[in-house]
């Protein structure tokens, strides 16, 4: 390095062991600091995540009173709170006395600008979508972002039949129960949302058991923790 630097740290050639030692020390220290901060902040962060998730689920599944995470493990849904890498899961929504009412299904796909992640509520009994919430998107402000800002558009998904599949139509031409009024000027994002939900259905519907054989909700334990 430059001369004045040599002088700056006035040290004659240190031994390689010292180098390693220094690095090791630095690594150790930083590791310590990081871990402690991590431990300190973890609860708050996870709590927040959970809160956001809860709100989303309760948003898309209007009249449920409890929820739990249902992971798809070797061919069946099993209640399982903490998540693992690349395991697929939905969220079961239950009424007060623990009967399963519907599922909140996460799904994602390409939008106009970037990937759109959303969560939608599905009632197996009526084969209906009853709610949709965008979790993440980078659509254009003023156009694409109407997919979550435009109440009218979101309302489309409040009571939407999924048979044979959901289709988006030009604004104001909705006739059948499985149609969605696209946003004028943002047809592409609208279509994207619809496509993403359809794909979610394609992936999940045959995996979802009917209300009665779905994993039940152990009422007593959970009630304390998960009161709203």
């Amino acid at each position, binding site marked *: 390095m430059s001369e004045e630097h040599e002088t700056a740290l006035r040290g004659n050639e240190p031994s390689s062991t010292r180098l390693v030692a220094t690095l090791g020390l630095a*690594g150790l220290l930083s*590791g310590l600091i990081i871990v402690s901060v991590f431990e300190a902040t973890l609860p708050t962060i996870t709590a927040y995540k959970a809160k956001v998730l809860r709100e989303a689920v309760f948003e898309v599944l209007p009249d449920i009173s409890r929820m739990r995470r249902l992971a798809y493990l070797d061919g069946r849904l099993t209640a399982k709170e903490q998540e693992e*890498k690349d395991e697929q899961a939905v969220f079961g929504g239950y009424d007060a006395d623990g009967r399963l009412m519907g599922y909140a299904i996460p799904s994602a*796909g390409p939008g*106009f*600008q*970037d990937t759109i992640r959303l969560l939608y509520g599905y009632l197996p009994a009526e084969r209906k979508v009853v709610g949709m919430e965008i979790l993440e998107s980078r659509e254009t402000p003023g156009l694409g972002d109407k997919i979550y800002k435009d109440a009218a558009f979101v309302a489309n998904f409040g009571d939407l039949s999924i048979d044979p599949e959901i289709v988006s139509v030009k604004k104001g031409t909705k006739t059948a129960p499985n149609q969605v009024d696209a946003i004028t000027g943002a047809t*592409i994002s609208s*279509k*994207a949302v619809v496509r993403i939900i359809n794909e979610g259905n394609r992936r999940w519907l045959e995996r979802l058991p009917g209300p009665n054989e779905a994993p039940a909700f152990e009422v007593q334990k959970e009630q304390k923790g998960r009161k709203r």
Partner: protein
Amino acid sequence: MNDLVWIFVSALLINNFVLAYFLGLCPFLGVSGRLETSFRLGLATIFVMLITALCAWFLNTYILVHAPYLRLISFIVVIASTVQFIEMVIKKLSPALFKALGIFLPLITTNCAILGLAIFSTNKGYGLAQGMIYALGAGLGFTLALVLMAGLREESELAPVPRLMRGTAMNLIIAGILSMAFMGFAGLFSAA
């Protein structure tokens, strides 16, 4: 399969690292003066990115699942050593190239484009194949932007650009217009 295509196109054009994410601006503004150099730096970056993706995937699957908090540090260490390695190789193979790239190879080490790649593909939860495709797209996109920029800059050097405009201000405006043009790729292959 289909989503692999989209991942590639998205990284290459729609969400070009330089023009949409502002990543790797230092080399973008610093090196794009000469076409030759830009091209080589681009290639170097592609290479580093591919390796980064590989490392990122490895770390994510085997280490970070147990110690998520070490993500940043481990990424940096791995990437840094990779670049060191490349630097040595290049020094061996073509001293000329090494001269041409000057301080920029070390700069790639801490270049946000590289780190960004690792972090983004982690956030998006990409697997190995997806990650590699993503890296390839991002690298090529970076190179594309860099090369186009170099061509434009070499040409505008002959023009009587207003004195105050000269230098970085001009380059940023050029980049802005370029990024406007790239908006044309938005929605590519996503509109079914």
